[in-house]
C-alpha cells in the first residue's frame, strides 16, 4: 500500500520554505540521494510558485494541497489548487535560447521528473501530477 503524505499551505510565497522542508523529508523517506532530493524539491517549488503566480494571481490566502504518494516503484506528487485554469499550451516551457526572465519553471519540472501531467479546469480544480521512479535498492 502506498504511503501518503499531505501538506496544505496557503498561496503565500513565504510558505514555500515550509513546503521545501516537507518535500525534503519525503525525499529522504523515499530513499533518494541528497542531490536528487534537492532537484525534486526544486520541481515542487517551481510548480507551487506557478500556482501562486498564475492560478491565484498573487492572492496569498488561497489553498494549495500537495499530496505525496510513495508507491512501490515511484514517488507521485499531486499539486491541487482551486484558482484560475491556466491554459496548458501557454505554460509550456519556453525555448532556452530565448534569454528573458521567467518561463523556466515548466522546463525545470519536466527536466527533473519522469512524468509531468497537467489536468486543469476540472470540476474539482487544477491538478498537476509529477512522478519520479524510486532509486533502485542496493
Amino acid at each position, binding site marked *: 500500500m502506498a504511503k501518503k503524505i499531505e501538506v496544505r499551505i496557503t498561496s503565500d*510565497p513565504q510558505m514555500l520554505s515550509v513546503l521545501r522542508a516537507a518535500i525534503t523529508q519525503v525525499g529522504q523517506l523515499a530513499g533518494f540521494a541528497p542531490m536528487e532530493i534537492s532537484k525534486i524539491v526544486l520541481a515542487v517549488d517551481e510548480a507551487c510558485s506557478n500556482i*501562486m503566480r498564475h492560478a491565484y494571481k498573487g492572492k496569498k490566502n488561497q489553498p494549495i494541497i500537495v499530496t505525496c504518494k510513495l508507491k512501490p516503484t515511484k514517488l507521485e506528487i499531486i499539486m491541487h489548487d482551486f484558482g484560475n485554469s491556466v491554459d496548458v499550451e501557454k505554460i509550456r516551457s519556453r525555448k*532556452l535560447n530565448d534569454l528573458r526572465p521567467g518561463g523556466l519553471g515548466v522546463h525545470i519540472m519536466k527536466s527533473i521528473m519522469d512524468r509531468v501531467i497537467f489536468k486543469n479546469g476540472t470540476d474539482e480544480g487544477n491538478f498537476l501530477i509529477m512522478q519520479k521512479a524510486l532509486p533502485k535498492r542496493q
Partner: protein
Amino acid sequence: MSLNIKVQTKDQYVLLDIEGDVDLYSSPDVREALLKLTKKKTPTILVNLEKVPYMDSSGVATLIEGLQQCNKYKGKFGLVSLRDNVREVFELTRLDKIFEIHRDVNEALANGSI
C-alpha cells in the same frame, strides 16, 4: 528564512553578497538591490552566492534581468561561489553558458573576464 543582502564596494568591482534562500518570496529583494547597482551603471558587479543554499527560477530570472541591464551599458556581471545544487539550476536551464560563473572572487579577477 529571511534574506540578507550586503553591497561591498571594492577597487575593481562591487560585490553583492546574498545570504539565504532565493525564491519567489525573497527574489524581489535581490532584484531591488541589483537594479540599484545597474541604474548607477556600476561597471563590474559580482554576485556572491556562497551563502545561498537554495535558488529557484525566480532567483535565476532576477539574475538574468541584472545581466541584461548590465549588458545595456556594457558593464560586466559575474556569479561566484555557487553551491552544487544552485549550479544545478543554471545547468538545467543551460544558463551556465550565458553567465560568467567563477569558483570565487579571486578566480573571477584572475580570469580577466571580469
